[in-house]
């Protein structure tokens, strides 16, 4: 990856992180931890990877993205705003009574949101449906979905994994955000779903494990996924919950808590440093 591209992605990811903080601080609630962990991957998807038209969000041949870990909507909205689907100023309306930026993604009202999600385990199945419909219709679009590591405790994730491999949905790419923490504590202690790589492989998937904050590895993984023609791909992305804001990193407490004014200022200063 050349420096110009890396710099652009780094800048976009920083803006997404600032948007996450803006949204959750303004709302006084929301989920910053898992939003910050997925920010670099979302930046890459929306800036480089996906074939989309922000001016025509329902374009029928577009690549799709489903945020199966729907509670990290602040990252999704900040990414869509960064890519120009709606004005960045709107991020401050997150979760407010007259805002279209619902606590969890709502495809009916938010430009760029391809699927309504929030209840864990449902999004990956919907992504399977989109991928299947694309194959049946002879379309070449691809479908991406981000699944949480805690979310993978939901049985439906594995029903979907079975389905996608059975129907050889090579146009489907799951990104498993392996940040290691969930509400009640470390994922490994609450209900250990690992090893994800071996599980997905056993279900018949192509599996790639990467550092989810390294743009070179992210780029290589998506390129590799596109080259697989007979099975879906799972990218197991090792990430840091709260990434980019030192006092939030690897802290369970920042799963579902908004930064107060002081914390917000400190976090913004750190990102802008």
């Amino acid at each position: 990856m050349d420096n110009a591209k890396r710099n652009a992605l780094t800048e976009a990811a920083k803006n997404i992180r600032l948007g996450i903080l803006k949204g959750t601080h303004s709302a006084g609630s929301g989920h910053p931890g898992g939003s910050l962990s997925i920010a670099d991957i979302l930046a890459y998807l929306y800036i480089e990877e996906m074939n989309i038209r922000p001016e025509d969000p329902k374009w029928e041949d577009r690549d799709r993205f489903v945020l199966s870990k729907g509670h990290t909507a602040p990252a999704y909205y900040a990414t869509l705003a960064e890519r120009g689907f709606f004005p960045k100023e709107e991020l401050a309306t997150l979760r407010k009574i007259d805002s279209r930026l619902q606590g969890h993604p709502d495809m009916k009202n938010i430009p760029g949101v391809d699927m309504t999600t929030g209840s864990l385990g449902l999004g990956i199945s919907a992504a399977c449906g989109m991928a299947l419909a694309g194959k049946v219709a002879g379309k070449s679009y691809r479908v991406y979905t981000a699944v949480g590591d805690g979310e993978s405790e939901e049985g439906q994730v594995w029903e979907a994994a079975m389905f996608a491999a059975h129907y050889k949905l090579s146009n489907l790419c799951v990104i498993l955000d392996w940040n290691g923490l969930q509400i009640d504590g470390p994922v490994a202690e609450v209900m250990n779903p690992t090893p994800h790589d071996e599980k997905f492989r056993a279900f018949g998937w192509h599996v790639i494990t990467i550092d989810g904050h390294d743009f070179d590895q992210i780029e290589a993984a998506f390129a590799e996924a596109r080259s697989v023609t007979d099975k879906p791909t799972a990218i197991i992305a090792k990430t840091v919950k709260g990434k980019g804001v030192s006092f939030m990193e690897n802290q369970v407490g920042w799963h579902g808590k908004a930064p107060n004014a002081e914390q917000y200022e400190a976090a913004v200063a750190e990102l802008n440093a």
Partner: protein
Amino acid sequence: MEKKATREAYGAALAELGAKYNFLVLDADLAEATKTIVFKKQFPERFFDCGIAEGNMMSVAAGIATTGTPVFASTFAMFAAGRAFEQIRNSIGYPHLNVKIGATHAGITVGEDGATHQCNEDIALMRTIPGMTILNPADAVEARAIVEAALHIDGPVYMRFGRFACPIFNDAESYKLEVGKGVVLADGTDVTLVATGYMVHLALEAREMLAKEGISAAVINIHTIKPIDATLLSSYAKKTGALVTAEEHSVIGGLGAAVCETVAGECAAIIRRVGVEDKFGKSGPVPALLEEYGLTAQHIYEEAKKALELKK
């Protein structure tokens, strides 16, 4: 009178309509029983078995629908409305997607499989989802019509079909379905029998029994449980002052409840409910089950008499 299970009409209708409309069909390892097998044989490239994973099937259906292709998702009522309630609510209902749920083996007429498979709660569950249309056909002719009607409805539809053969009283040639409109099968002035699904032909029988005693009963077929025909129900509540509802479903949350909720705000009327009382089903031959759970013309007749007594 010829008899046919509404699930048979469902499968046949999918195969027939498949030539005319572009849609996909999903099932969860019950194609032989739900009769989607008939569609599968004709259009194998548009049929996808999801295996025994109903929750995934409903969310997959939602994903398909986002691309603009309508999709039917079929399984038993118990595993659609029951097992996959939350997927139907959040993946299909909330985004108001074009998923048509074909739920077969509804109610007590499942028979020998017993309580775990006899879903008497599906109407109650589906009624609580905003924007959900609920269609419950009374015979095979109506069943065919609701499948085509479902394709013309913008949004989710829950279609309820039975396993047990029931008499075909509608005329296939002349039958016209109007979604959201109750059908006055027979007019009357003393009491109104409001029935849905399998109970409609029994309501017609009960009307004959009442007629022998000089009682004039109207019979209304409610094939659309949601949105319910409030105008028609209120007018008959006002006209006759006494209603008996009849459904092959729990008396809690189904047609009877919907009629009470609708009429209560409009006028004073006595409403008696025939349906499965607040208990689980059990194994047995269907006729014996219908008898034991009070889903008979005799029971509708008796409740009509009670309603007339209370009206005085």
